[in-house]
């Protein structure tokens, strides 16, 4: 086993008594006081997450945007300065190599965040395809914090009032806590909140400053996973992977209209055909109505017991008080209200297709001027 890497907050996690686990090649906190308590705290107050294991980079150059669009199906030409957009790194078959955020926080090109477990592969793939004056610079000396929950905005506004004026998916480069930061109003919990890229050597100071606020508690990766599951957000490597298309993954919102019209992204043939004719399988949400939690790998069966698909994530929903799951089924069995079964340790249990997000998202959208 290769040695785990650490984030600049490793000592801070240990000082807080976190239980540490290996995740994405990093020694990360899975919980502090307990997954359920941390999950609920984030839904009610403000949770602080160390997500420094994720991959941050800048893509710059005169044709950086045009070059980046060769690998993703989003329209970044029309993305306004000060905004970010969710997208997908697609392979030549239209499969999802990774999902990512890319934004325009300043005039220095795109600021990109990719998943921890894929970052080496993603950046190597992109770097091998650089052309012209385009550069990809990894920001390995930066940490990434997320503050999420209904009180996150008030907590952050107490430090910098201008942050209250950011709307969901706004992206900025600002001096915060006396440090040069990238900040976006986004996250992975379904709550309002921010993701803040800070210089690694300032991370512990900023982390501790945020924790001085009684509304803020540290939250581990355990609750991060249960929160994102409730929010219906896919986890790459589990709910979506290089064999999954954006249509199968129920991520067609990431296919920009202009890009579909131009059919100029990787795997466009397959993806446009699936949009027209339907995919072989599609990601759905399930309310598991009885028995044990249905987790990754559990089979999904139709009402007659014939296996038709697989669960890709699942577990208890602390907010809803029942078990939820996401998984893949054929489109003709994907309608809301469809009664299916999940098979856990050989036992079939009733499950119904329900809409995602399972728990309503509470993103802050600015009123239109």
């Amino acid at each position, binding site marked *: 086993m290769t040695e785990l890497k650490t984030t600049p907050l490793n000592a801070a996690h240990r000082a807080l008594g976190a239980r540490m686990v290996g995740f994405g090649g990093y020694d990360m906190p899975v919980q502090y006081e307990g997954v359920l308590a941390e*999950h609920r705290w984030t839904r009610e107050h403000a949770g602080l997450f160390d997500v420094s294991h994720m991959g941050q980079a800048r893509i710059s150059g005169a044709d950086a945007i045009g070059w980046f669009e060769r690998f993703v199906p989003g329209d970044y030409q029309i993305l306004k300065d000060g905004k970010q957009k969710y997208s997908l790194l697609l392979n030549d078959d239209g499969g999802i190599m990774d999902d990512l955020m890319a934004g325009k926080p300043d005039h220095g090109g795109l600021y990109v965040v990719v998943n921890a477990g894929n970052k080496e592969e993603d950046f190597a793939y992109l770097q091998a395809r650089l052309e012209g004056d385009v550069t990809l610079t990894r920001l390995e000396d930066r940490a990434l914090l997320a503050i999420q929950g209904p009180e996150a905005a008030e907590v952050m506004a107490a430090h910098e009032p201008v942050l209250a004026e950011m709307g969901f998916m706004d992206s900025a480069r600002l001096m915060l806590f006396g440090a040069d930061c990238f900040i976006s109003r986004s996250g992975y919990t379904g709550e309002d909140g921010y993701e803040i890229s800070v210089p690694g050597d300032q991370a512990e100071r900023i982390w501790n400053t945020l924790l001085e606020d009684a509304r803020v508690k540290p939250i581990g990766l355990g609750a991060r996973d249960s929160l994102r599951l409730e929010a219906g957000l896919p986890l790459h490597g589990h709910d979506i992977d290089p064999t999954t298309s954006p249509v199968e993954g129920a991520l067609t919102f990431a296919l920009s209209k202009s890009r579909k019209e131009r059919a100029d992204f990787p795997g466009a043939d397959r993806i446009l055909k699936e949009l027209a004719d339907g995919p072989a399988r599609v990601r759905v949400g399930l309310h598991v109505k009885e028995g044990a939690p249905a987790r990754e790998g559990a089979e999904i069966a139709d009402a007659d017991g014939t296996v038709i698909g697989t669960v890709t994530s699942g577990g208890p929903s602390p907010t809803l008080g029942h078990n939820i799951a996401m998984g893949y089924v054929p489109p003709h069995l994907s309608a809301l209200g469809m009664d299916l079964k999940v098979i856990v340790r050989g036992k079939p249990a009733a499950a119904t297709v329900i809409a995602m997000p399972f728990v309503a998202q509470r993103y802050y959208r600015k009123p239109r001027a």
Partner: protein
Amino acid sequence: MKFTKDHEWVKLDGDVATVGISKHAADQLGDVVFVEVPEIGKTVGKGDSFAVVESVKAASDVYAPVSGEVVEANDALSGAPETVNADAEGEGWFAKIKVSDASQIEGLMDRAAYDAFLATL
């Protein structure tokens, strides 16, 4: 009360053993959200997976510390799985097994030996 290296406990009363998971195991699991206890009448062998305990994150097998027949199961855990966290070595018991070979218990660790074992982990 005796303990296994897999962190089950067993308490013998006559020829019936009450079985559960140790406080240490419950603490390591974190919040228990689901427990699957064995069916009454089921015959289990020492070391067989005979129950399942689930935290928010994962499902873990519970192994029978002794061989025998399940004569009672703690069905209260289905409605209150958090009892395993609150009182793992008491109200959080999983099942009662009519033991077929009481000598199997002799080989298990007592509290002091189990604590010493935990210190090595």
